[in-house]
């Protein structure tokens, strides 16, 4: 998952609170590199999962799902800009809000 000669700077947690990878409540640890953006991390995930994130969050005109960093939802456009650091918790969730 990491490029040759690159040194991981630590790990972050990806938490899935919506249907990704066939489940809707699970998490994984992912190594990160210095200067990594969130988009970089998503791009290095297993192909199927990475494609699913693109399909559900990054590509649709009106995505039903979103990304939160340390509990705070960020704009989709910021996924490519947001630099993450060791220990960050990234949550993928549905925007569904409904009572």
């Amino acid at each position, binding site marked *: 998952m990491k490029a040759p000669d690159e040194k991981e700077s630590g790990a972050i947690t990806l938490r899935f609170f*919506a249907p990704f990878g066939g489940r809707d409540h699970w998490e994984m640890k992912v190594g990160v590199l210095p200067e990594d953006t969130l988009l970089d991390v998503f791009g290095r995930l297993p192909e199927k999962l990475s494609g699913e994130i693109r399909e559900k969050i990054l590509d649709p005109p009106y995505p039903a799902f979103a990304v*939160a960093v340390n509990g705070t939802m960020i*704009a989709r456009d910021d996924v490519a800009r947001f630099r993450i650091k060791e220990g960050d918790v990234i*949550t993928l*969730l549905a925007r*569904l*809000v*409904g*009572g």
Partner: protein
Amino acid sequence: MNGIGGMMKLGGYAGKILYVNLGGESAAEPFCRTEPLDERLLRRLIGGRGYGAYLLYRLTDPSVKPLDPANPLILSTGPLTGTPLAGSKFVSITKSPLTGMFLDSYSGGEIAGEMKYAGYDHIVIRGRAPQPSYLYIENGKVELRDGRRLWGKTTLDAEETLKKELGPAAKILVTGIAGENLVPFSCICTDYYHQSGRGGAGAVMGSKNLKAVAVIGSGGLSIADSKGLTEFRQYLIQKFKKSQYGELRVKYGTPYTTVSASSIGVLPTRNFQQGTFEGIEKINCFTLKEKLWESNHACLGCQAPCMNYVRARQGKVRVIGPEYETISLLGSNVGVDDLERIAEFNELCDGYGVDTISCGNVIAFAMECFERGLIDRKTTEGIDLRFGNADAVSLLIGKISRREGFGNLLADGVKKAAERIGKGSERFAIHVKGMEISGYEPRGAFPMGLAYATATRGGCHRRAKPVEIPQSRFQYDNFGSEGNAAMVKKLQDAREPVHCGILCDALLRFCFETDMKDVAEMYRLVVGWNDMTAQELNELSERIYTLTRCYNVREGVRRKDDTLPPRILYEPLPDGPGKGKIIGDATFNRMLDEYYDLRGWDRKSGIPTPETLTRLDLADIAGSITPAGTGEEA
């Protein structure tokens, strides 16, 4: 196609309004009579909220107080109610004891369809019974029966008692002990766990000495195109299955909102002092599913069983819920991070028949007063009313419902409680026009503030909920004003056609993606309005929204009332994406000006203009409600 009740042309309608006079001030009226629906109004107002608003407009005036015998309780359905379409509902329409304004409060449950099968689209109940009573309706038979043995019972016990007496065919709605005690945020409950929750329709029942209504209907409903409707229902089911939200909606129901509300910083916490809650993991949907969930539950005819039966406290608590609003207002907003206790609060509120949103708000308000030293243990009768004290919450739900001691100080809602306590507490009394606001903190999403300020029943999330809209779908500014008015108006308007129908708006929004062409197709297939279009429904939406505004204007509501609590307008949030942001007067007024312009309401007064009433074909109903007619011309 044969119509029912004399309506030969239109499907979906039962065709009649049942008027019941329980006695008292309107003694000139017979005990009961029926009236045919006014066919000229059906295409203009449809039913449910639309036709019901017209009835309330016609039957009351500002001299009628909410708890007067003359204030009608109107139980309304629409032409889609009781059909095979998903999520049939009825609506309780009345002048609200909580706000003094128009109230429409929706509920699922089987009684919605049963009213239609008994032959009535609307049941209008006026007067006051001489003693505790219940209304028994079996098709054309209408009787007022002795309800004294039901008085003092919880909603669950009262319904169970009547079920045993009348048999399973009877569909029943009841009010609880809170309604008997005229608590202005008491509910009407049906099928044990469904509520017309907001605004105090339960107190209107209590004021009429009316504990329950039981309905048995053995008639049918005509459908303009039954075969087409069956096929359309399959289309909706497929659409739902493909919906990105459908799976989560069924699996977790509204509690999923804990996850999203927390992450965008709109989770009411400790009386709206914060927008995030450190105990969220303990009260989110995943914890509910893992620890308390027992089974799913669906409304009449719905293929998306989105409610949760839960069991808590070693099996002592079993309830449908808690829904998101209950988790937020009786959880994070009172600082309680224990889902088992929240389920217990839910069961208590359901049993006493009080709205969990208002109840959570008023208790949280009292907690903040206590922590700030505005009230002490002497006032609270020894209760240590700090945030997080679950025992205190449990105790207060009962005291409020019974109007007992300190509970009586809180029992008229947060606005009145702040007036009684004074000492500057009005600043953090969280309500709009007297109705406590629901589980979405506007400082984390400014358009939500406009939605609360302009909702026709007060601080309500069920007319528009901008927080659920992906930012890219509308051009709006989450922490500013641009585009927010247009979005809020569109969202408000989108709900009107289903609130007139009446079907579940949540299902329409989340699973069918609020496609007005779909809704128009429903009316075409059920009623036979073959030329119904999405555009016509958009016009209907504007008409109904402005009609309810006219009602409120006649009751004295003006621009000054379309506002937000001082905390929400002027204090910054300390956390979440909205940290440090202030809505403020300038931003709020920009949104409101733009909103009035879009609605065709006068900027200065907030009153619909004569041109608007003419454009919306309302001049004959509400023609006097104009800036000039009220002497407030801009």
